[in-house]
């Protein structure tokens, strides 16, 4: 189905050059669609305009704003709105794909400004907030304009249903599964080894829970070692833990994709002790694709990704004793660990970009039925002449 070349406009709400799941998703999707022969333009806030690929259009510098328990680098305001309108007017897109359009960002602005086939992807999973009663009536008419809504997980979908009373099609986040399936096991990471990948300094990633579980595990498996990969200041973290454990811990820093594949193929168990704030769990999907047996906390996103425990072991979140127990059980039972890894690996195939992009593209096709392309909403209003003058002076 990927044969007709389309002009696709994608809006990424978060700063392009800051790390994050949504940005990675947008980048991979854009590159996949370009490789399939489509014309793609991504509008995103950008800090350093000289360092972005040529399919990215800058909407200005992002602002750091506290949102959903973290600092979000997003952008809005009159100047950003003018840029968004300019981008839509000049793009002549067949379809717009807006990411996270329910937060104050250029995605929301684009949804407001545009008319025509639009698809929205909702990434976040959040608990029901009181504030939603106040912002619901503002958001509703805007979100209504989307011809199709995608949620990246069941958790994100139920968030959407609760907050905005609207349903969505679940299409998981994509990974390049083939990058991880053929890793070569490395001697240095083999044995009774536990792996962790991610920004370990963030408390919600839960590395400290694994550290609390480690003394118990060490009593039963004296040669257990933990490898932590990911960006961050490891010295500070090492100081904060028990000196007796330090020898079991090794920080690898940021690792390449190739090393990641080898790493996942070598370790005995991949541990994801996240305490929350995850909507999908891309790293878990990658770990499964890489053939690692996985133990993850039973937060909703991981529970659904691991099929309720069929494709990876779940422990009750923030309970380090339970985690320790499950680590010991699986380290001792080679057969079960290998069976779990095998089941996980075949399960991960459905997250491959080949599958995921095809699903997203079929949503595009459905949204474009009888479509006239994307244009500015204000173009067909009665007071148009007035607005046109205003817009041209703003640009």
């Amino acid at each position: 189905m990927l044969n007709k070349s389309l002009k696709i406009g994608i809006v990424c709400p978060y700063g392009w050059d800051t790390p994050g799941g949504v940005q990675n998703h947008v980048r991979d999707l854009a590159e996949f669609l370009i490789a399939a022969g489509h014309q793609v333009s991504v509008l995103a806030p950008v800090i350093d305009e000289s360092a972005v690929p040529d399919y990215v259009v800058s909407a200005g510098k992002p602002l750091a704003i506290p949102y959903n328990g973290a600092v979000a680098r997003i952008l809005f305001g009159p100047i950003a709105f003018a840029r968004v309108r300019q981008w839509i007017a000049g793009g002549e897109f067949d379809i717009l794909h807006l990411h996270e359009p329910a937060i104050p960002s250029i995605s929301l602005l684009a949804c407001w400004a545009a008319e025509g086939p639009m698809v929205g992807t909702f990434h976040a999973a959040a608990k029901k907030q009181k504030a939603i009663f106040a912002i619901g009536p503002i958001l509703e008419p805007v979100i209504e304009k989307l011809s199709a809504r995608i949620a990246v997980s069941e958790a994100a979908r139920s968030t959407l249903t609760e907050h905005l009373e609207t349903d969505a099609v679940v299409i998981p986040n994509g990974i390049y599964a083939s990058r991880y399936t053929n890793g070569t096991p490395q001697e240095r990471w083999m044995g009774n080894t536990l792996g962790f990948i991610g920004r370990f300094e963030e408390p919600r990633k839960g590395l400290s829970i694994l550290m609390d579980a480690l003394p118990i595990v060490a009593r039963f498996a004296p040669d257990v070692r933990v490898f932590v990969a990911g960006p961050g200041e490891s010295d500070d973290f090492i100081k904060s833990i028990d000196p007796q454990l330090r020898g079991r811990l090794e920080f690898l820093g940021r690792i390449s994709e190739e090393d990641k594949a080898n790493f996942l193929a070598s370790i005995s168990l991949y541990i994801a002790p996240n305490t929350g704030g995850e909507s999908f769990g891309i790293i878990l999907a990658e770990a499964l694709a890489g053939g690692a047996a996985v133990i993850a906390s039973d937060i909703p996103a991981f529970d659904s990704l691991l099929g309720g425990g069929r494709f990876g072991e779940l422990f009750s979140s923030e309970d380090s004793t339970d985690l320790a127990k499950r680590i010991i059980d699986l380290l001792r039972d080679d057969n079960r660990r290998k069976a779990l890894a095998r089941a996980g690996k075949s399960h991960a195939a459905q997250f491959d970009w080949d599958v995921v992009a095809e699903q997203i593209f079929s949503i595009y096709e459905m949204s474009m039925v009888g479509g006239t392309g994307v244009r500015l909403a204000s173009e067909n209003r009665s007071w148009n002449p007035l607005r046109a003058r205003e817009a041209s002076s703003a640009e």
Partner: protein
Amino acid sequence: MRNILLALLLLLIVLWHLSFSATRLDRLHHRVETSWANLDGLLQRRAAVALEIARSEMSDPATALLLTAAAYQARDADIEFRSAAESGLSGALGLLLTDVGPYENLSERDLLRELSELTDKIRIAIALHVDAVTRTQMVRSKFIFKTFRLAGRAPLPVTYEFEADVL
């Protein structure tokens, strides 16, 4: 004087809100139409595939008869009987697929693959259409939409009842 100005401003705001709401409803009606057009197109394609399956070697004469009848019914049904007819076709296809063997023939495998792809798409298309319809119904039942008859003479869209489990 100030009161008059204030009243005028209020009137303007009310008028703006009415115009905004009318645009919003118009957009929703448009969404219902396009999502239905999309669903309709997919269902037509499914009927065509069902006919081809009926003509192919994988269906015995009895199945072929059943499928052909169901496919024609689904194609020709008026809108009010449409969902019943489509469910009938889903049932007939379901019967065929439950005792489907490993088909060696390439064209037959292509047909079955096309059918399963279509089924996936139809499922999504139904979800999109139902969402558009329920949204429209919800908005139209709101106070200002009813009071000012913003829907005009557009008929209230009805939910397309489709038994997703027989698909």
